[in-house]
């Protein structure tokens, strides 16, 4: 009995002492694949080192599943300590409704304005001159990942551009290899199309159509070419019966598929599988057509919580996320580019170095998430998932529906 009482007393003292120093901060994100989980563990480690405690609130199933949960928890009055979104217009209304914290003080104290590169990243966090989020990485969509083993088996040289890849499609198919891996989730189809648009028609076309709602341009001959290319991609992707993007990446890793058009987050999967760029796989930024990367990415937002301890912990977390050492450790694991140009990434692999080079040259474009609302993205998802899964839709018919979406977007 006495020992039990002693134990209880000890436990309560322990609980008391930890609650004085550390605050539990629940952080919600959707990083659950192998490479992503390894990367987010770096954040947790860095935050725990400050004496607070990172409570991991990972939601499996990607942004489409996680965003509604995050939003309904915030609206429902049960906000988490911090959450990850893609910066852009996804959190626009939450900010306007005053549900998210203004982090300008932290940003000024840490000098984010001077270190964040490219500056457009911070702009995506800024509304009316106030900063509402902490950008943590740059992700670009415009990459194709090619399996050396697959091309060897088909007896074709590894392509250096989308055109060569498309031409090699038949040889791959004849060798019993799936030419292009594409998962069945809707965002993958629209993402693939947006990449084709940015690399074949050029970033200016994309910015004009999505940013300025240029319906005439969307109906024009340049876009018709993009739709034709999408139709080629559709026949190359026919038969890949997978759902998740990392399953599709796995087809490339195992040499069952020739290649996949996917953002640079796919790199983490190659790293986890122990493959090296250049010998096992090749990455082509901008599909080898146009050296360009979009500067989308992930950012952390901090809901308003009426509790001084949590607010203080949120400030610490925001500052920690952008610290040089955290940025290096996180981005190496995640396969994304850091948001500050002043850190040493000599440990980066070839693909990341190529990305860094393009970033340094300033060949960047805004991410689709910064130009479109989720509503428009959802409509595009519906259109392109149908287009890529149903070969009976002609490129012309799809273009007509695309123009309609552009005309009515907000």
């Amino acid at each position, binding site marked *: 009995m006495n020992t039990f009482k002693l134990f209880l007393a000890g436990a309560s003292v322990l609980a008391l002492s930890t609650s004085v120093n550390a605050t539990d901060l629940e952080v919600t994100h959707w990083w659950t694949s192998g490479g992503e989980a390894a990367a987010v563990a770096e954040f947790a480690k860095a935050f725990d080192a400050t004496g607070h405690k990172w409570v991991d609130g990972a939601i499996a199933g990607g942004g489409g599943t996680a965003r*509604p949960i995050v*939003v309904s928890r915030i609206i429902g009055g049960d906000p988490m300590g911090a959450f990850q979104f893609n910066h852009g217009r996804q959190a626009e209304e939450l900010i306007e409704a005053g549900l998210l914290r203004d982090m300008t003080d932290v940003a000024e104290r840490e000098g984010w304005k001077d270190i964040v590169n490219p500056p457009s990243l911070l702009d995506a966090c800024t509304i009316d001159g106030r900063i509402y989020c902490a950008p943590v990485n740059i992700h670009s969509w415009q990459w194709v990942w090619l399996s050396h083993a697959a091309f060897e088996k088909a007896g074709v040289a590894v392509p250096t551009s989308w055109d060569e890849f498309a031409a090699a499609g038949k040889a791959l198919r004849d060798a019993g290899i799936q030419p292009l891996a594409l998962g*069945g989730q809707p965002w993958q189809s629209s993402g693939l199309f947006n990449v084709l648009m940015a690399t074949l028609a050029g970033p200016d076309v994309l910015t004009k159509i999505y940013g300025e709602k240029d319906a005439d341009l969307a109906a024009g001959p340049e876009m018709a070419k993009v739709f034709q290319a999408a139709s080629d991609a559709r026949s190359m992707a026919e038969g890949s019966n997978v*759902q998740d993007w990392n399953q599709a990446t796995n087809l490339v890793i195992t040499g069952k598929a020739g290649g996949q058009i996917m953002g640079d987050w796919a790199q983490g999967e190659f790293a986890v599988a122990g493959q090296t760029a250049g010998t096992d796989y090749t990455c082509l930024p901008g599909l080898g057509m146009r050296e360009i990367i979009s500067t989308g990415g992930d950012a952390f937002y901090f809901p308003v919580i009426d509790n001084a301890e949590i607010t203080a912990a949120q400030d610490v977390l925001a500052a920690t996320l952008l610290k040089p050492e955290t940025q290096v450790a996180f981005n190496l694991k995640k396969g994304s580019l850091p948001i500050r140009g002043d850190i040493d990434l000599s440990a980066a692999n070839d693909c990341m170095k190529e990305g860094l080079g393009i970033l340094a040259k300033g060949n960047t474009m805004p991410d689709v998430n910064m130009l479109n609302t*989720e509503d428009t993205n*959802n409509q595009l998802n519906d259109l392109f*998932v*149908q287009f890529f*899964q149903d070969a009976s839709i002609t490129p012309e018919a799809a273009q007509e529906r695309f123009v309609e979406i552009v005309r009515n977007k907000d």
Partner: protein
Amino acid sequence: MASERPNRLYRNLTAKIAAIPMILTAVCVFLGGTAWTVVYSFTNSKLLPRAKFVGLDQYERLWGTHRWVVSIENLMIYGICSLVLSLVIGFVLAALMDQKIRFENTFRTIILYPFALSFIVTGLVWQWLLNPDLGLQSVVRSAGWVSFNFDPLYNADIVIFGVLIAGIWQGSGLIMVLMLAGLRGIDESIWKAARVDGIPLWKTYVFIVIPMLRPVFITTLVLITSGIVRLYDLIVAQTSGGPGIASEVPAKYVYDYMFQGQNLGQGFAASTMMLLAVLIVIIPWAYLEFGGKKRG
């Protein structure tokens, strides 16, 4: 005399008081929530509801959307097939079960068992069974019939029937049990009388037993139709609406636009259309069912 009659309001007073919380819930939550949804379907609410009215814009966009039209078509096909097949299969199984067979308990348990599984589990199980690389197709092919082709979930034209199989598998057990209970409630003397009169067995079922089972049929009908309208989790688990948008259903459209698309107005408009569809079915039925009785 008249003053001594108890006021109708005070009759069964305790029962009425006990019902007040439920009545309040029904009025405030169901009716109030429904009215609010309908009103806000005429606004341009995005992530958060806001009362800026835009007339019928949301409905125009809804009916101009390819995916919504596909969803409605799918629901019609699924609804009609599921209604007919559930009733027919449920009744036939119940009639067979009613033949005083051996091991009736065992069979009844086996047939009812799928109902114990959630739609999510059902959907996943059938996703694997119908997967061409792991399921039925590969089993038949490995048994020697190499050209055998059966992959409904990867064929946009027939994917909804792949979902239908899972739905029927899950639901027909319950219908059978309800029908069986109804059949057991029919007096032995009726069977005997029919036999004495020399009426063939199938005629006994069609002209005597089925009309007597009317209340059971109505119960099962309500259960099946409500299951059809809210069809959502089976689709999510089995196909996620794919391939492409070939197996989308209205409830999924509502969810996707309300939460993923951050467009509440569009989701409200779609759910109002779903409510309207239900009302179109229910009002004439309720009129016939309850209005008719008073006249009779």
